């Protein structure tokens, strides 16, 4: 009897152990970062963060100095503003365009749509680094370099292939009968898209927004190249990286900076997660 119970439960236990191990492994570096961010610079230089664990309740060994110097360093507010401008534009535009094109590619019948879809998916393979110089040249001619609009376009370009791919797969899974019914009821293509496809794809859109927002928010290289690093346009990532000296001095500040920078994506993720889950459940119940 007991043995049978155990036999039934064994796979469950194995799964749990593996999941817990994975969580611990993934969480460990973040924990180290968190603890380091609260330790004074001199301690950081001489001992590892785990030494703080030997007496975790000794509060004198912690300090909020790192956070203070990160937040009070000049231009932080501008950097936050710039990051928001860049990330919101760099997320809304590609997600909107991707929804339109993925809908067209999966639900409208026209000649060569398989070809166009394949072409877009092929673009996933092009490394963005290859495009920097030619695109930047073009930007200089059009005087788009150093502008937020230019950067939105770049993020749109780099984000579209994956976004279209992801939404296309999702739209494909929606039953064609739904759209045929809408058509028979007299809905135009635009109405079908807005009233039927978009509401049905909220879970997919939410996860796409999370992906794209994270990618743009955390981007340093693309912004450096197309925007330049001047303070008035530099996003948070650039501002934070300039806290560290050219030989890596003051790197302890980076740990606190990392948490400051993580705060916004975390809020975005947590607030969108609700829609993400609700969208999934809604679909399940309606069948």
């Amino acid at each position: 009897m007991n043995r049978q119970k155990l036999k039934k439960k064994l796979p469950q236990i194995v799964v749990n152990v593996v999941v817990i191990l994975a969580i611990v492994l993934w969480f460990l570096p973040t924990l180290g970062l968190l603890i380091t961010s609260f330790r004074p610079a001199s301690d950081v230089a001489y001992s590892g963060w785990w030494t703080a664990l030997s007496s975790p309740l000794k509060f004198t060994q912690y300090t909020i100095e790192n956070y203070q110097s990160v937040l009070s360093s000049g231009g932080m507010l501008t950097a936050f503003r710039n990051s928001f401008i860049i990330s919101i534009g760099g997320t809304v535009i590609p997600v909107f365009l991707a929804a339109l094109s993925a809908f067209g590619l999966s639900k409208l019948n026209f000649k060569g749509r398989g070809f166009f879809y394949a072409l877009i998916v092929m673009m996933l393979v092009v490394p963005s680094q290859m495009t920097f110089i030619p695109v930047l040249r073009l930007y200089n001619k059009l005087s788009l370099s150093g502008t937020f609009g230019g950067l939105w376009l770049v993020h749109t370009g780099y984000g579209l292939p994956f976004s279209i791919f992801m939404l296309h797969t999702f739209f494909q899974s929606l039953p064609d009968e739904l759209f045929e019914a809408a058509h028979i009821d007299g809905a135009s293509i635009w109405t079908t898209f807005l009233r039927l496809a978009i509401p049905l794809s909220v879970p997919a859109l939410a996860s796409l927004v999370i992906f794209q927002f994270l990618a743009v928010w955390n981007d340093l290289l693309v912004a450096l190249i197309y925007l330049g690093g001047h303070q008035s346009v530099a996003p948070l990532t650039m501002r934070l990286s300039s806290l560290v000296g050219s030989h890596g001095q003051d790197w302890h500040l980076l740990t606190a900076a990392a948490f400051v920078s993580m705060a916004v994506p975390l809020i975005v993720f947590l607030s969108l997660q609700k829609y993400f889950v609700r969208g999934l459940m809604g679909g399940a119940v309606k069948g």
Partner: protein
Amino acid sequence: MKRSVFVVFSVLLVLALSLGASAQGVVTMMGVWGGQELEAFEEVMDAFTAKTGIKVQFEGTRDLPTLLQTRIAAGNPPDVAALPGPGAMKEYVEQGALVDLNGVFDAKILNEDINDAWIELGTYKDGLYALMFAADIKSLVWYRPAEFAARGYEIPTTWAEMEALMDKMVANGDTPWAIGLESGAASGWVATDWIEDIMLRTAGPDVYDQWVDHEIPWTDPRVQEAFEIFGKIARNSDYVYGGPVTVLSTNFGDSVAELLTDPPRAMMHRQASFVTSFILDANPDVVIGEDVAFFGFPMIKPEHGNPMLGAGDMIGQFNDTPEAAAFMNFLASAEAQEIWANRLGKLGTNNKINPAVYPDDLTRDMARLLNEADVFRFDGSDSMPAAVGAGAFWEGTLMYVGGDDLTDVLEFIENVAVDSY
């Protein structure tokens, strides 16, 4: 509905485009500085703006080589930028990206304020393409003045005197040198600095440049000679504390501690200016400049004079605008360099700098040494391709100190060099 969405987007786009339009009376500059360095450089820029009314837009990034190359290739380099080093400078000149500074600087700066050694360093193919804004020096021998005085040792100014001093130390029962080559994955760089310093003094700056550019092979007798002079010390248990085994296994930051024991286990240590921070970490009570001081690495062959090995901040101009020219002239001036030297303890290259601005006597002494040097050269291993300068050269010195035959070691490095240049 459809139309209104597009209208909103196009309005947003136009708004965004108009935000970043460039203004006049502005110099754009790209550099690697962050943190404390950036704060010091901001003071330099503010002083320039206060003086001329021209604003400086500074872009700081630690990925400078990549970013600068991309921007040059795309045709919108910054007006002024810090250059990664002499090798990069030459590449940019070949690409036609840099402005010849002979047409930019005032005659007074070129002829009086900046020493010839710095002009020579920024010169390539008959043009002046880089300003040395500040320097760090490496050709320093650290010692304890009190111990030297108690034993009657005198600071050597030539290699013959140095050899006599080493023998005198050995006869007295002292060990002349402390050397530590261990530095994790970068183990060996301390030895490459030694060999570069010797090479500069035995073969001269011209041959040194040929060696760095691999125009002479590693098996050249002059390279061999430099290795042998180093080997005479590092492979000899009389001359170096602990012998080759200790040399190989001691961390570069720990080896200076042998000078500070009582009685000292070794009398001299060759290392760049930054070693003071290692001394203070291990012995916080030591007064740098009193308990521990330095003298310049002595000259070996008089005809090559007293060169100085080091590194520095090189600045080049990419766009020929009057604002950029004004900024370059300001950076070359004593006024700008005094701010930089005062805040960061770096050594300025303008000889009109008031020595009082240096943060301490030690830095003042280094500035004096630097001014007296006839020739300045960048750390050669930094200018070689990474496979050699940050690979085979390091490894080769370790093999050599470990007892390998010199001909084998040099052939090993040469083989790697042939593939990498």
